[in-house]
């Protein structure tokens, strides 16, 4: 945002909050992944200019061509979806990102892409009509794509990825393209890493907020986002469409630089509860760059992916100068914002065993349904045989200094009947496993109650699923 507004004097981008929560600074970024150019919306206030190397940045100034409004702008006007107009550049670019990736987006996808664009004037009702107006304008994907895209796409496909290293003596930035290069760098630049005043950065949704709002400056930032081996998602199933109810343990392995947006899309079929949980986190502008590894390593007690990862017993693979090592997510945290990875270690992948449970579920409570941080969250994984719980794992966030795995409650449920009463009885057990404190997002008392009530919500979700699917006799 500072580069665009101050250096390039492109002032269509607006600052509404400067911390990735309002969407007024939304830009579209085109980047090459696996031989294809993909587009995403991004929060301009959190996106470091150095990351733009080899990418295509589209700002609102690039939307209309030859003095003619872009169809998206026409549709916004037609739907009366702009009032004061301050949020409108960001809104327009969120819609552009959506239509560049999906030819005819669903209502749900439209909401997913727009929920991060706060508007205080319109009440969003007119905005929801924009897709209809685009249809009425008989807009096809060709009209949506700005004329210059083909040219820039060709350029990008031939772009050679190399390490980037800049150092002005006060701040340094290093962006390697491979883990080997990174190891080599760590070995040869110990003067920058000593004193531990360096940070790994990926999507930057936490690190950049820290730099901007909390003045947490670092001597060196090492950007992991261009390391191609960290971009892989591997699912060891040969089947493309995985039939349901197949109880073979497959492992889903996601690289440390895989963005939350890609995870939503990839896990929609094979691990829908995970997809839904990630979709409830932050906004598309943030998810498109933020990573699962970042959500874990940030070690927030209200990280929304962590309870699920604990419930299914996911494991982390850490890379670093001392070689690779694996650690279960439940053993990774010790104390508020503290993890067991060493300063120079990074998360190279996260492995999730699938199909080991009959029922996996996630619940969160927050003030607002979307784009809000949890007061409490909770995940459960159950194996149920003939109406009896044979295996249970429960984890809760927002009730302690870290996300907590709940061994007593898990054990309590095992061997019990899968019915409401069992869960009601478990209320008494789960409160003994954590002592939540109160803050701006919820009081201690509310959190304690939610820890219990979310257990019941898990049960109710199971019952609903059973009614719908005839799930687990």
């Amino acid at each position: 945002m500072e580069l665009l507004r101050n250096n390039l004097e492109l002032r269509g981008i607006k600052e509404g909050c400067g911390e990735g929560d309002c969407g007024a600074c939304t830009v579209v970024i085109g980047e090459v992944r696996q031989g294809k150019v993909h587009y995403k919306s991004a929060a301009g206030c959190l996106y470091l200019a150095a990351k733009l190397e080899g990418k295509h940045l589209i700002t609102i100034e690039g939307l209309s061509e030859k003095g003619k409004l872009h169809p998206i702008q026409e549709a916004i006007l037609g739907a009366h979806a702009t009032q004061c107009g301050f949020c409108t550049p960001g809104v327009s670019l969120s819609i552009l990102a959506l239509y560049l990736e999906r030819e005819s987006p669903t209502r749900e996808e439209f909401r997913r892409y727009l929920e991060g664009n706060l508007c205080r004037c319109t009440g969003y009702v007119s905005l929801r009509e924009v897709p209809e107006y685009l249809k009425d304008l008989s807009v096809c994907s060709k009209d949506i794509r700005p004329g210059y895209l083909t040219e820039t796409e060709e350029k990008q496909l031939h772009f050679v990825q190399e390490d980037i290293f800049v150092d002005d003596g006060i701040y340094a930035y290093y962006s390697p393209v491979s883990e080997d290069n990174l190891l080599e760098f760590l070995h040869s630049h110990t003067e920058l890493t000593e004193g531990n005043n360096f940070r790994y950065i990926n999507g930057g949704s936490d690190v950049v907020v820290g730099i901007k709002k909390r003045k947490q400056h670092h001597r060196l930032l090492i950007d992991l986002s261009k390391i191609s081996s960290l971009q892989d998602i591997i699912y060891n199933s040969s089947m493309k469409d995985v039939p349901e109810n197949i109880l073979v343990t497959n492992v889903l392995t996601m690289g440390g630089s895989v963005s939350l947006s890609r995870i939503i899309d990839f896990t929609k079929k094979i691990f829908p509860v995970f997809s839904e949980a990630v979709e409830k986190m932050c906004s598309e502008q943030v998810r498109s760059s933020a990573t699962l590894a970042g959500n874990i390593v940030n070690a927030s007690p209200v990280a929304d992916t962590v309870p699920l990862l604990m419930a299914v017993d996911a494991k982390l693979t850490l890379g670093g100068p001392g070689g690779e090592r694996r650690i279960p997510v439940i053993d990774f945290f010790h104390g508020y914002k503290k993890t067991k990875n060493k300063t120079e270690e990074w998360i190279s992948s996260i492995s999730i065993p699938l199909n080991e449970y009959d029922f996996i579920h996630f619940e969160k409570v927050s003030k607002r349904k979307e784009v809000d941080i949890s007061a409490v969250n909770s995940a459960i994984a159950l194996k149920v045989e003939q109406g009896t719980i044979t295996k249970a794992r429960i984890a809760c966030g927002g009730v302690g200094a870290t996300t907590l795995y709940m061994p007593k409650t898990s054990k309590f449920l095992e061997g019990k009947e899968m019915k409401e009463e069992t869960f009601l009885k478990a209320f008494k057990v789960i409160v003994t496993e954590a002592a939540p404190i109160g803050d701006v997002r919820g009081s201690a008392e509310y959190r304690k109650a939610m820890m219990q009530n979310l257990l019941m919500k898990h049960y109710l979700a199971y019952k609903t699923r059973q009614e719908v699917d005839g799930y687990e006799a």
Partner: protein
Amino acid sequence: MEAVFADCPNYLEGVICNDGQEHFYLETQSALAVPEDTGGLTIYSSSQNPNEIQRMTATVLGLPQHQITVDIKRLGGGFGGKESQATVWACLAALAAFHTGRPAKLCLAREEDMLCTGKRHAFESNYRVAFDKKGKILAYSVELNSNCGAVADVSTSVLERAMLHAENSYQIENIRIIGRPCKTNLHPATAFRGFGGPQGIFAIESVLQRIAFTLGLDPYDVRVKNRYRQGDIAPYGEEIIHAEHMDKVFDKLRKDSLWDERRKNTITFNAENKYYKKGLSITPVKFGISFTAAHLNQGSALIHVYFDGSISVTHGAIEMGQEVNTKIGQIAATNFGVPLSYVRIESNNTKRVANTSPTAASSGCDLNGYAVEAASLEIMKRLRELVLKLFSEAEVVFENGFVYPVTADGATYENPLISFIELVKKAYYERINLSAHGFYATPGIHFDRDKGQGHPFLYYVFGAAVSEVTVDLLTGHTTLDYAHIIHDCGSSINPRVDVGQIQGGFAQGIGWVTTEELVYNEKGKLLSSSPATYKIPTIGDMPEEFHIELLEGSINEQGIKRSKAIGEPPFVYGESVFFAIVDALCSMGRYPEELSIPATPEKVWREIRRNIDNGRKE
């Protein structure tokens, strides 16, 4: 009144609270001051009140007002938060520019803005009410205590409007309204869409809701029973003109929202569901239009018609997303009989329009639209005289950029006498003045503060909203399933604009009553000081099923082009969501007396727990 309370078997008393609300205009407070080579400064400010900025910077710098020019094109949202609270930032920028001789710009970061600028007034209201067994209020006494913060700002006016709306849409024979502005150590509270109206209305609506619960009556019926009828007089002595519109709204909304069917379904749903409860509500609005400070009810405009027929319009209102420029452009184009493209609305500039009132109280279009009307009719009078001179036609119409003769059968559109552009050219050569200043002062408004009597409003806006919610009893989460609004905006100048204002006002209202929570620490520092912790509605918070109707056949003789003001009244519809939550909780057998605005999930959950504890005791 005390005799009524003493004798009445149906009597309730209690406390009703609402928190404040952050404006969260997307554009934070900002100002740019540029020194002029002839001395003085030009100030570009994100303000709803250029006149005050001019006066205050002149005072701060010790300059006469003519040395300060304030120029404002548009704002990235205002909602009242830039009525008085934009001034200090403009003064600071002006001070820096004045002493350095260089341009100075000041923009607040979001957190700074949220920490130190004013919010909506929190209220704590004590009430006593007596009513008959059919729910008709016999006596209502309310003390509205308003948390004004550390500085008076516009607090007394806000409180006054709260008091003037304390009876909302209801005829109450015995009424006592007391207002107390309370000084506290918090940041000063200020104007915010509705300006005290929503707080006064919230108290009486809460009382009616509780009466309905106490008597086991449908809240809709109790409201209809108490409504104003044609000829009724408000507690401050003014007749509620067109009160019969409220009847129309009540009747039509009951039908169109399928209220009775919804009520039945709600009862069935609540009987069948242990962990979810549905609630249904109706919230009517009667909103008085005019500044309660009578001197502010004035507007001004300056119009130039240029040689080529293009028209420049400057008026005293500020465009901040409410599309006042669209409406005023339409008014000018209609009066000149030209396409909208002939008209350009200029920035608000203190050199072109002076001594303007803040754009507030929903009055921007009325006051300045009338001023534009006066200026345009003045120029048209001169042009008509020229037409008479040129064509000897006394009866002509100006339309689509042409002048047509009128015969006994009406206008003859085939053969125009002359185009507007040609006529303007001829007027120039005839040395006719093609510029005019227009002025408007709202007639007949007066209010005696000492007696609490008078005629403070030019007219009233009416409407009502029905909302249906589902409350998750395990978490306290609310989902707004359905909303239906019928709104009386007279003969709308631009229905799309008015509907947009209703949608946006409703959304802000939903935010205020549900998720927007100002959390302070024990020292009064705001903790929810960024969008990470202060949650305004997103696209997913609006109901999937949402209907808005503009009341048909309504004509407002007092408003510009027979329209009604639109900005603030729809905000109050948000309260219907609060009362739908109350209704859902009432289905558990107890009135959630302690629930206050905002009904966050945690606060709703606390009421659910009280319900459960209550059940256990019994």
